[in-house]
């Protein structure tokens, strides 16, 4: 659909991240078809929406937070104060030695408690770090998908079902500039666990492996290709069934193939 005022309205909602349902789908499809005007509006209005943050008064964070954040930047080797045994007490110093060992006993107990606490904190921090890494990976993937979908040169190719799976359907959003594609497929059969679907990009008439993917229980898949900078110009796309992990050259049955670009 060509740009019109309805899309401008959706762009404003998208800038705030409050689009949903049919509107969200229709706007995404509109962007995917390439609409620099809408992209500009989203970008512009997103900047304008940051102004709303000024409606929230600044609140000084807890004073120690800054130090905690800076400390968490690098994993530091925990420093444990070594407990030194006193040189053996002699003669008149027995009283002092006894007092010292009593103090050491307390330090020792305290040290064990601190160590347990520290270990618990370390476990918690490791768990949080791994959750953070997963979230960052997820975010990076979403950003990548949007980058492809929003790139100015995005093309959409429709792939239709072949051979064993005539009912399969797919679309590939391909950005020649980004050398990446996003595949959206449906009606695919689920495969035995030792098999996976593999995407191929045809460049100069030859298939180049573009990654493997699985489908969900309803036969759908959303898959972002890796960086395919080896491709000079993508002519067509196809999906085959291959051994899990993928192969370098297609060997299994073709289930989806696109209409080559003119």
């Amino acid at each position: 659909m060509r740009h019109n005022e309805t899309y401008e309205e959706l762009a404003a909602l998208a800038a705030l991240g409050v689009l949903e349902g049919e509107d969200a789908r229709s706007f995404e499809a509109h962007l995917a078809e390439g609409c620099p005007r809408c992209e500009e509006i989203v970008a512009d209005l997103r900047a304008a929406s940051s102004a709303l943050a000024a409606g929230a008064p600044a609140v000084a964070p807890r004073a120690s937070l800054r130090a905690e954040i800076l400390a968490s930047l690098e994993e530091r080797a925990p420093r444990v104060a070594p407990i030194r045994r006193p040189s053996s007490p002699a003669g008149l110093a027995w009283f002092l030695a006894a007092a010292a060992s009593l103090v050491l006993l307390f330090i020792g107990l305290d040290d064990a408690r601190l160590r347990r606490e520290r270990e618990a904190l370390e476990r918690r921090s490791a768990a949080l770090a791994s959750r953070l890494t997963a979230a960052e990976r997820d975010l990076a993937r979403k950003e990548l998908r949007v980058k492809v979908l929003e790139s100015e040169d995005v093309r959409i190719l429709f792939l239709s079902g072949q051979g064993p799976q005539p009912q399969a359907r797919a679309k590939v959003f391909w950005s020649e500039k980004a050398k990446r594609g996003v595949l959206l497929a449906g009606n695919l059969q689920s495969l035995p666990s030792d098999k996976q679907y593999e995407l191929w990009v045809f460049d100069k008439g030859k298939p180049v492996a573009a990654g493997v993917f699985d489908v969900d229980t309803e036969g759908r898949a959303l898959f972002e290709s890796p960086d395919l900078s080896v491709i000079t110009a993508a002519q067509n796309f196809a999906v085959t069934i291959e051994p899990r992990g993928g192969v370098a050259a297609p060997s299994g049955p073709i289930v989806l193939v696109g209409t080559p670009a003119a």
Partner: protein
Amino acid sequence: MSPEPDRALVARIERRDADALRELYDRYGARLNGLASRILGDTGEAEEVLQEVFLYVWRAASSFDGSRGSVLAWLLVATRSRSIDRLRSRRAGRPGSTRPLEDAPEAASSDDVEGGLAGREWEALCRKAISELPEDQRRALELAYFEGLTQQEIAERTRTPLGTVKTRVRLGLMKLRERIRPYLSEGRDAS
């Protein structure tokens, strides 16, 4: 001596300079904490968001694209999207979840917010622009921005037809943009 521009700080952070992160925190920590607190209404959780945002900045400073927006806008978007995520997962289970379009890479205009205007002036002009919006537009924008409500939820909350909500959001944002734009270019020319 004029303070080091935000972008220079981000470049230093990319080179693992923790002092630059400290400086950025001192500049915007309270502002970002204020935003997260307003959204989450819980100091403890807001501080977790703040921590996440600065760790994200530390690890992903290279993902900041200076041609697409200011550092402050980047930080605000990162803070808002993390806060709204938490808010929405608190309300998990409700139907009609939203599309995470705000996860898009920050694509603010190239207007350099912090380059032309000090943080306080920027804040003052934004407040003024917000206060000049018609009440119903301001309300719709705030429900979306701070509460993460979807268009349908805003319609229900304000007992307004969906079409009207869409129009209010669009008109409100466009007005904000118009009010802020002249200041931005003025600030830029002056710098």
